[in-house]
């Protein structure tokens, strides 16, 4: 029998104990993987090339203020900017106020919108139909599926911010990966219904010819409006979205706190199991030492067992995490939260590494005790 198979056999000798420990560790690892995924999607992941060329230009003070319509042509004149569209958050109400009936409803300019949002794929004839119908709407395919909408169906939105109700006809359905849960309609339609809104826009979305020009273009736009009545703040789409994340509170500390608690829990569970395991094998250890196994050997045997258990639990956790996280992503997008999460190789590797390190840390003390055991007392042990 080689040392390797000796360790493997011992690790899974008490099947129930090993299994329970593994399951316990795997749930902790599942949570850890989830946290790493959220962290990645917020702070690490690079956005798709189309999105990295998009700029959001809004009022410097607050999103609640509208920008004048003439800003659009001024923004268009900035070098590098290829397309600009006005965007306005209509909010409104569909059916009722319940969270499951919430989706983004935005007013924009159909003639240019799909040039800016080039990652939205729509059949050309539908785009044309949308552009030609002032009361037409463009919707996401998952949203259309959710409510069973087809081309030509009517959608009635009640106004909340704007004192008007909208009766829209679905003219186009777009595909996007990941899906987005949004509805777009003509800003002109809103202007006709709400006279005071005429000549204004909530914010502007612009497409820049290359990701390298985003920083320069946004600086130039902000400088251009520095002495205007309404100053602007331009930032990439990703930064704009992170602003919403930041408003939820100290998200980083929150995630790190949960990770800390989870890692500590894994350590406790693993240490507990190793302590039980060492205790029940007291006499065996004494026999091993009588046979000539050195202290180092005994120590490494037990530490390896701890690592083996933690990594096996970790593997189980990561495997469970893959479907769970993909399910959650769909649910989040259904609720209108643009959280795109996938368990990628580096995430899985990091989670396993954490499990292995925690295995070493937690297994060391019980293993050290075992290795230092007095042979005679060990042999006498009844347990």
């Amino acid at each position, binding site marked *: 029998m080689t040392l390797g198979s000796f360790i493997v056999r011992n690790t899974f000798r008490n099947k*129930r*104990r090993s299994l*329970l*420990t593994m*399951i*316990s*560790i*795997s*749930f*902790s690892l*599942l*949570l850890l993987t*989830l946290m790493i995924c959220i962290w990645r999607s917020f702070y690490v992941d690079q956005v798709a090339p189309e999105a990295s060329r998009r700029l959001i230009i809004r009022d*410097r*003070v*607050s*999103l*609640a*203020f509208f920008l004048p319509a003439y800003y659009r042509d001024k923004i268009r004149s900035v070098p590098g900017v290829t397309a600009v569209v006005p965007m306005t958050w209509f*909010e409104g109400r569909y059916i009722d106020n319940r*969270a499951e009936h919430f989706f983004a409803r935005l007013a924009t300019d159909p003639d240019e919108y799909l040039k800016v949002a080039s990652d939205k794929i729509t059949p050309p004839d539908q785009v044309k139909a949308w552009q030609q119908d002032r009361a037409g709407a463009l919707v996401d395919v998952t949203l259309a599926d959710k409510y069973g909408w087809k081309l030509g169906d009517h959608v009635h939105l*009640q*106004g*909340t*911010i704007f*004192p008007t109700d909208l009766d829209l006809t679905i003219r186009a359905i777009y595909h996007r990966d990941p899906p987005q849960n949004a509805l777009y309609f003509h800003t002109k339609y809103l202007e006709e219904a709400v006279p005071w809104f005429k000549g204004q826009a909530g914010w502007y979305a612009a497409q820049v010819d290359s990701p390298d020009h985003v920083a320069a273009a946004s600086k130039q736009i902000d400088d251009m409006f520095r002495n205007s*009545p309404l100053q602007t703040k331009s930032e990439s789409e990703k930064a704009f979205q992170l*602003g*919403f994340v*930041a*408003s*939820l*509170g*100290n998200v*980083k500390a929150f995630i790190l*706190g*949960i990770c800390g*608690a*989870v890692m*500590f*829990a894994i350590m*406790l*569970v693993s*240490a*507990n*199991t190793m*302590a*039980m395991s060492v205790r029940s094998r007291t006499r065996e250890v004494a026999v091993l030492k009588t046979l000539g196994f050195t202290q180092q050997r005994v120590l490494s045997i037990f530490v390896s067992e701890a690592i083996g258990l933690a990594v096996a639990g970790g593997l189980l956790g990561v495997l469970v995490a893959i479907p769970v996280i993909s399910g959650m992503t769909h649910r989040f997008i259904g609720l209108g939260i643009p959280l795109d999460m996938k368990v990628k190789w580096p995430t899985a590797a990091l989670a396993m590494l954490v499990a292995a390190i925690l295995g070493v840390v937690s297994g060391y003390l019980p293993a050290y005790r075992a290795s230092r055991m007095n042979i005679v007392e060990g042999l006498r042990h009844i347990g």
Partner: protein
Amino acid sequence: MAIPISYNIRNLKLRKGLTVMTALGIALTVTTAIFLMALVAGLNRAFVSSGSKLNILVLRKGSESELTGGFDAALFPTLKVLPGIAKDSHGEPLASGEWNVVIVLPRKDGTGEVNVTVRGMMPDGLEMRQLPGADGKPSVKLTDGRWFETGQREVVVSKSIRERFAHANIGDTMEFGKGSWKVVGVFDAGGSAYESEIWGDVNQMASDFDRQGGFSSAYLRATDPIAAEALKNRVSDDQRLKLDGLIETDYYAKQTSSGTPIKIIGIVVAIIMAIGSIFAAMNTMYAAVAYRGREIATLRVIGFSRPAILTSFVLESLILALLGAALGIVLMLPFNGMQTGTSNQVTFSEVVFALRITWSVAFAAVCFALVMGFFGGLAPAWHAARQNILNALRG
């Protein structure tokens, strides 16, 4: 006959290391759950304790928050003469037309920018909020400096705004709108939604944000609760006005929905951690049962029934869980009162609130731990009760 609990307690004491580690594991899960529950409790308190039952908030019909309100200032004189409004210190109706805007301020600790509500109000607005509410306490209290003066570019900030944002001390100037504003006072709003606001003169604010000639909301002070109800209906039913009247406390109670994201995250995290803890507790209890095989058999021989043994082991697991819950609550107590903020989903600005470990949070934590203990202990206890006496005695 039941096995006395002291038997279980002695056993837990005997295996100290194991007991403490398992309890710590449960405590960790309980701590996380308490933290999330305390966040939600604090947030709910911020909204539930906000406003007065005597204040009527007037918004444009169909609008759901002060931020998206907005009506013609010409309607205000009509509102002011409605019956049932209390008199202010000058003998005039106690009513205030207000402007609510959201501005962006950088956090002091450099963790990003936050939307903060700025409220412009009339002198009556200040007077109204210092009157005792239904619970006998005023909505706000001045703690430092003085109130802003009408016609001046002055603001007063809440205690927590002063703590969380730069340039918010008395004597500092804040930059927003078309220029700078001098901070002249600090008020304490007792953890309510006002705790997240900056107040100034309504006309100064309106001109800075180009909103002259309108108000985003109006506040009317009713003489008594019955008059408040009547006033609310009067405002809503008047066809000329096209406005909605709301009791201020009802308006804030609706905003508790802002806690939903925290609640969802909290439930997911707590459940996953709880399942992990249940398996860990199960492990400990199986070890306890295995270790005491002969003892259990002896108990059976003496005449203790299977149900008695089952109950005894489940009880032991529950005691273990209680220990964990107690430990978890003690670990979390230092965080009680810690201030944090989240996005208010109705007003689109940050709401500041304090972590609150209330009795109901503690009670929920204990129940949560007991559920973990019960499920963790059930299978091992079942195993113990079903053991074959002869085999177990032979060990």
